[in-house]
């Protein structure tokens, strides 16, 4: 008994602080958030207990999901995520593929591509707000101006001010910032494939395409999945970049995280909490299967 305590005690004691902190500040607060979202706590008076807040179960969720404005936010989130994911995966893979062959100055290129990630979303957002200025023709500036200079006037558009697809314009800086990170992941994946495998494939007479299709891609798929999950959950939480390019009240660039912010500033804690829970569930749908899978693989 004493022996067992000696064996388990110290590690448990070591872990206790982080377990307690996680328990209170992550899981405890998730529970508190969820409870708030089930009440009709829509005003400051209810939040401070001056007026009663009663349990309304899932009414807030039903109202939110039924409202046209929130559907627009969700649609924006889907558009943003798809474009962001596809963009970073393609760019990241291309760069990794080019750098994978021994090139002169590989280290330099690697840093150049990875560097945007070091810039905060807020800082790059300020610059991109100017680049993505929606003025056209005579008043144009930023990218629209650039299009004029190189004679591609037809490409001018109003960027993030388009009601339906405006959010995609905000995915451009996000892709610019995180493609380098995906590249680094893929590069590590490429480096992890032993040279012997390629040699063996070539000995067997595989063409270059077949080599990629049947040897390299299968080896890279775990890396691709990790990249998808990491970029995917970042995209779902998108807030800072949108806030620094656009403004919270701008309808064209609303996403659930922005809605949550606006609800909270209106003292509407119940709806803010409900949006938070919906976001958590969406992220969990992406992450939990991945965690289960990696867990299983590690056990194997």
């Amino acid at each position, binding site marked *: 008994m004493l022996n067992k305590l000696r064996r388990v005690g110290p590690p448990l004691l070591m872990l206790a*602080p982080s377990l307690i902190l996680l328990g209170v500040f992550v899981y405890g607060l998730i529970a508190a958030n969820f409870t708030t979202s089930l009440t009709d706590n829509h005003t400051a008076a209810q939040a401070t207990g001056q007026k009663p807040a009663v349990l309304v179960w899932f009414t807030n969720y039903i109202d939110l999901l039924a409202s046209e404005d929130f559907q627009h936010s969700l649609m924006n989130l889907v558009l943003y995520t798809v474009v962001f994911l596809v963009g970073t995966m393609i760019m990241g893979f291309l760069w990794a593929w080019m750098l994978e062959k021994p090139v002169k100055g590989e280290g330099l290129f690697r840093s150049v591509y990875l560097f945007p990630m070091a810039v905060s979303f807020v800082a790059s957002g300020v610059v991109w707000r100017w680049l993505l200025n*929606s003025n056209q023709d005579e008043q144009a500036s930023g990218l629209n101006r650039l299009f004029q200079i190189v004679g591609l006037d037809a490409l001018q558009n109003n960027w993030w001010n388009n009601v339906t697809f405006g959010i995609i314009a905000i995915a451009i800086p996000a892709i610019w910032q995180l493609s380098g990170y995906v590249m680094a992941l893929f590069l590590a994946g490429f480096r992890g494939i032993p040279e012997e495998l390629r040699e063996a494939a070539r000995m067997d007479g595989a063409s270059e395409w077949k080599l990629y299709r049947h040897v390299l891609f299968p080896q890279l798929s775990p890396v691709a999945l990790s990249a998808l999950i990491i970029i995917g959950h970042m995209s779902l939480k998108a807030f800072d970049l949108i806030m620094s390019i656009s*403004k919270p*009240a701008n309808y064209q660039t609303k996403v659930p995280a922005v809605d949550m912010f606006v609800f909270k*500033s*209106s003292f*509407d804690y119940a709806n803010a909490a409900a949006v938070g829970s919906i976001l958590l569930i969406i992220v969990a749908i992406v992450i939990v299967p991945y965690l289960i899978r990696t867990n299983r693989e590690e056990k194997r």
Partner: protein
Amino acid sequence: MRVNQRMTATVATAAVLGLTLAACGGSGDGGDGGSASGSADQVEVFTWWAAGSEKAGLDALVGVFNEQHPDIEFVNGAVAGGAGSAAKDLLQTRLQAQDPPDTFQAHAGAELQDYIDAAQIEDVSDLYDEFGLTDVFPADLVDRLSTEDGAIYSIPSNIHRANVVWANPTVLEDNGVDPEATYDDLDAWMADLDKLDKAGVTALSVGTTWTQVNLLETVLLADLGPEAYSGLWDGSTDWEGPEVKAALEDFETLMSYTNDDRDGLDWPEATQMVIDGSAAFNVMGDWAVAAFEEQDKVLGTDFTAAPVPGTDGVFDFLADSFTLPVGAPHPDGAKAWLETVGSLDGQVAFNKAKGSIPARTDADPADFSEYQQTAIDSFANDTIVSSLAHGAAAPVATLNAISDATSKFTTGASDLAGYQSELAAATQS
């Protein structure tokens, strides 16, 4: 091996202890203010006046405060960022945690409603009597500040006017519009805007959503008149009615004369377009005068200022004000601060530096700049109504809902009928 294990245990214990101590230390901080309860040796003043003319105004006000109350220490609780949104965020948290500052800045009027409902601020109407403010503030203003049961929850430090149109006379002249022209109503104005628009200049510059709401409220005011406009906020004017519909149609027309990149601009950039001559008109509150003056522009020659057409004789007011939070650690300090805020010396010093005008009517206009003198004159004589975009007319939740609906409309996601019913729904809740 055993030594190793013991060491692990020791380190773990130390870590736990360290964390516990850190936690205790953290809570000790908060209790600090409470221990000196009731005393008047200091006052923490929470504002978002951290830069520019606002900070200059606060510094001037503190100067007067130190003269009037030399024994009370002023503690600056200014929070910078986001035109006050960072400060409001932090304030919300502090009030919720029952750790209020001694006094905080807030827009006077309906924006205080949430704090009142949450029982977070005190009725200060007895301080109005004590400091003799009821007679020196315009009666219209006191009416606007009082709740239905006659209570007043803050003391205004300064007044701004939201229904001002700024123009660049050079641009007007170059495009065949008489810069001296005065407009009786929006229709006359829109005829000239149309002319400018056809000439290829931005006729009217506007910025992001809140500046569009600012424009909307002046249009409502122009078309409905002051009485019906005020009725929008107490329910006596019908949002679904044909008068509002006509006003919204005018708003739609006005928005069609504006710049495309509006949603990415805040007011300084929109006003800058008039200063630079890339736009002819801009509707903005009278804090914009600071932007012109900073760049050495002269009122009358380089720029003109007038009430928005159709709102002549109406003063669309907003005010910063100071409150007395429930459970403030130093209520006596806070009362001393409020006394300075309401005093003639305090108001003159503050407003000269900030560029706004005193809420008191007994200040000497000669102390102020040319534009301020005209504003002081209007404030004393005009009908006073409450601004929507700046929290005087409606609570935060209503304003946010109206802003959302306006953004949806101006980006083209809803039509006029949808917009009108969303506005009606926003004001009903």
